[in-house]
């Protein structure tokens, strides 16, 4: 296209964006500058609330409801977006600037076929006819290696998997061959094994069409694979900006360094003493949900010892969370039993005694939904105290204070607040305090850090580690994040399709030789090396070649 509008495709000058909440305007983006060349990929990094998505959307001249652009300029290919009419901007969106959302499942219209949603903007913007769009969609589906590219477009969004849907969305963004695509955390909701495929697809396609892109993510390792240039944001301000390699090798600002250092936390692994009795033993569990024909868990066996952290890893749908539901007694297994401290537990939690119930506690993935929003912290943490231990009055108050100290929160300040007045990390700490209040021997942690920013998550992991050393707790850590596993686990259990494919001490599982699936899982975790993805894709391709030759 015409390139006579200056050197940059997208420019932002001193951009200020405000959001309206609690009756007044707050500045979300505080004077942001950006220059993006044609064909260049920019990575935007920051914690939640840093203003990444707001800036991403502003690149289309758009603001979310309750937000407004207060000052500054956004210039796209010589067009001033801040002054442009809705009509002008509407013509740009979809045809010259495209957007790929975090959750493809929520962004697709469930009532229309994929290929019709692909064609919509092509026809709307008058780029081509329906037939041309269909043909182009098939080409693109083939290019991004979708299975059955000729027919997959005629499926509805719920008929393809999450990773395929995310790739279909990337294809859709390309339908009008835009000059700029904004990727807003496109792989955050995906498993690592799927993530690497989507990442590879996005990069190939961006290279192939020489499209500019803004890639928004909180995951540094991912951005390192994708971007030519990285911008670090915090509280709506630019902290640091540099070429990817330079940024990774030599970060200047302290905040950037702290982001880089997040993955350094490692628990001191304690080897299991051979004669200790297991706290929890899961014997030959086979379970399925009511009305389902296929079991979700098949012959699952494992033990967890006192003071030990066992991580259960696997993709979504592998049965990790179902194992937790069987242990807590929310789902009765068809076969097998759960033993706690040598005692077989009734399979339904309704039949368990208070003494049995209090010993097994659970911490959930989403701290927002795990605590009742209409209860004060005092009640949330205090209920197990009076329910299990019968504490009241000053005894209860004293124990509440102790628990709040344990989770490093000031009892005076927080006990009379509602959950809505706390941050995500603080809410998760309250969930930990609630679990501790029951005086348990064993805690199930179901993806407890996946909804949190990396720095906050690291704080939670350190806290759990300290509590384990002080109280001798056993943890079952359900996660799909292998960085967390490396940080906190003593033993690792790898699950696939409801079966345990490998289990053992962390070092044994994480060092070769691996089970084939463990290998795939481990090699798919992005590393902080910009060449990582090239290497891994080359390696996999050559392996496939060898296999094909062997066959």
């Amino acid at each position, binding site marked *: 296209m015409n390139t006579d509008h200056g050197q940059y495709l997208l420019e932002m000058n001193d951009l200020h964006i405000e959001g*309206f*909440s609690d009756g007044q305007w707050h500045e979300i983006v505080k004077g942001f500058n950006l220059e993006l060349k044609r064909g260049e990929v920019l990575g935007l990094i920051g914690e939640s609330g840093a203003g990444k998505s707001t800036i991403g959307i502003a690149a289309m001249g758009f603001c979310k*409801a*309750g937000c407004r652009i207060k000052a500054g300029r956004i210039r796209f290919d010589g067009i001033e977006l801040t002054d442009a009419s809705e009509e002008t901007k509407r013509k740009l969106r979809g045809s010259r600037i495209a957007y790929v959302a975090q959750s493809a499942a929520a962004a697709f219209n469930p009532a229309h076929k994929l290929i019709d949603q692909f064609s919509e903007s092509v026809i709307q913007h008058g780029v081509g006819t329906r037939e041309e769009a269909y043909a182009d969609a098939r080409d693109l589906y083939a290019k991004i290696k979708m299975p059955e590219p000729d027919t997959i477009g005629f499926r509805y969004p719920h008929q393809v998997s999450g990773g395929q849907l995310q790739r279909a969305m990337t294809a859709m963004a390309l339908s009008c061959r835009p000059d700029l695509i904004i990727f807003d955390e496109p792989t955050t909701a995906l498993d690592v094994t799927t993530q690497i495929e989507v990442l590879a697809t996005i990069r190939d396609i961006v290279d192939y069409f020489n499209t500019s892109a803004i890639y928004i993510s909180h995951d540094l390792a991912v951005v390192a694979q994708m971007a030519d240039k990285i911008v670090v944001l915090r509280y709506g301000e630019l902290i640091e900006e540099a070429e990817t390699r330079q940024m990774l090798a030599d970060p200047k600002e302290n905040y950037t360094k702290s982001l880089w250092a997040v993955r350094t936390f490692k628990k001191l692994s304690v080897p299991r003493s051979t004669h200790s009795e297991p706290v929890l033993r899961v014997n030959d569990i086979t379970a399925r949900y009511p009305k389902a024909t296929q079991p979700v868990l098949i012959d699952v066996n494992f033990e967890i010892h006192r003071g030990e952290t066992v991580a259960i890893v696997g993709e979504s749908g592998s049965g990790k969370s179902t194992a937790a539901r069987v242990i*807590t*007694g*929310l789902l009765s297994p068809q076969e097998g039993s759960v033993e706690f401290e040598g005692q077989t537990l009734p399979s339904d*939690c309704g039949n*368990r005694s*208070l003494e049995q*119930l209090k010993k097994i506690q*659970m911490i*959930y993935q*989403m701290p927002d*939904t*795990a*605590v*009742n*929003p*209409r*209860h004060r912290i005092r009640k949330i943490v205090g*209920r*197990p105290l009076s*329910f299990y231990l019968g504490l009241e*009055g000053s005894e209860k108050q004293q124990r509440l204070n102790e628990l709040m100290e344990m989770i490093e929160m000031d009892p005076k300040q927080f006990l009379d607040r509602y959950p809505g007045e706390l941050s995500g990390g603080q809410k998760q700490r309250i969930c930990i305090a*609630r679990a501790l209040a*029951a005086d348990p021997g064993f805690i199930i942690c179901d993806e407890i850090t996946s909804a949190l920013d990396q720095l906050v998550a690291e704080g939670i992991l350190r806290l759990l580690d300290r509590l384990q050393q002080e109280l001798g707790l056993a943890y079952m850590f359900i996660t799909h994040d292998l960085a967390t596993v490396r940080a906190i686990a003593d033993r690792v259990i790898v699950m696939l399709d409801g079966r345990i494919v490998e289990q053992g001490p962390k070092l044994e599982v994480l060092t070769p030789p691996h089970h084939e699936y463990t290998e795939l899982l481990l090699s798919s975790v992005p590393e902080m090396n910009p060449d990582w993805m090239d290497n891994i894709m080359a390696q996999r391709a050559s392996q496939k070649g060898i296999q094909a030759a062997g066959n």
Partner: protein
Amino acid sequence: MRLITADKISLSADRLSRAYQLLTEAPLSAKFGIIVIAVYIFVALFAPWVAPFGESEIVGRKFQPWDDQFFLGTDHLGRDMLTRIVFGARNTVGIALLTTILAFVLGGVLGILAAVVGGWVDQLLSRIVDVFMAIPALIFAMLLLSIFGTSIVNLIVIMSVIDATRIFRIARAVSMNVVVMDYIEAARVRGEKLPWIIVQEILPNISAPLAAEFGLRFCFVFLTISALSFLGLGIQPPIADWGSMVRQTAVLITFDDYTPLIPAAAIALLTVAVNFVIDWFLHKTSGLKDEH
């Protein structure tokens, strides 16, 4: 102990001042509604002192016009209209309030129960409610009242059962959204019994839509009772009641006398006032205010 009571006092004082602040920020319509409701409550509570005569005392000739002695004239038996309207506030509003409360307790508890327990309990309760709702409420009430007789107790019980079916549906629907939350699962795993889960975990989270519904339902019950009284099946003479007062004096309309419209206006005014307050309440509790 002392410390705790002191805390509680400061907490409730805090709440009072917050409630006061909320009232001052209320829009004009809501303020008007609150004042009207307050006047009704005052009149209902202190009826014997407010009214110039006794409730069913015959004090003059029938259908006397408005004058200094009988401010709003007299009815078809020669009872003072103003007195009847004042006592009517007590009877009609009191019965409507009692009926609505009973309907909410019944429908609310069963609705939440159906959502929490699910399975055949939910099926059974929901189908019974479907059957009740299939019959038009007013006709059903008339039918039951003619079977069981028209006493005030029967009126309250029958009206509340019929109304409970509507509240059951709402309570069940809003509870469904709460039941799937992790904190309900956490309470179950903790070993909490049903009453705790219903009252402590679910009820606080659905109280806003239920409270809004309470206001609306109160109006409907109120209107239905007035309608039944007008038809002769509601509150029975000699008890003063706005619905039957309209019927008893209706004939005056043909003589260009607007007395029958006054009890009707009393009904309309209260309905409007209650709805003003609900609208404000709904606006406060729904997140609409943040949208632009």
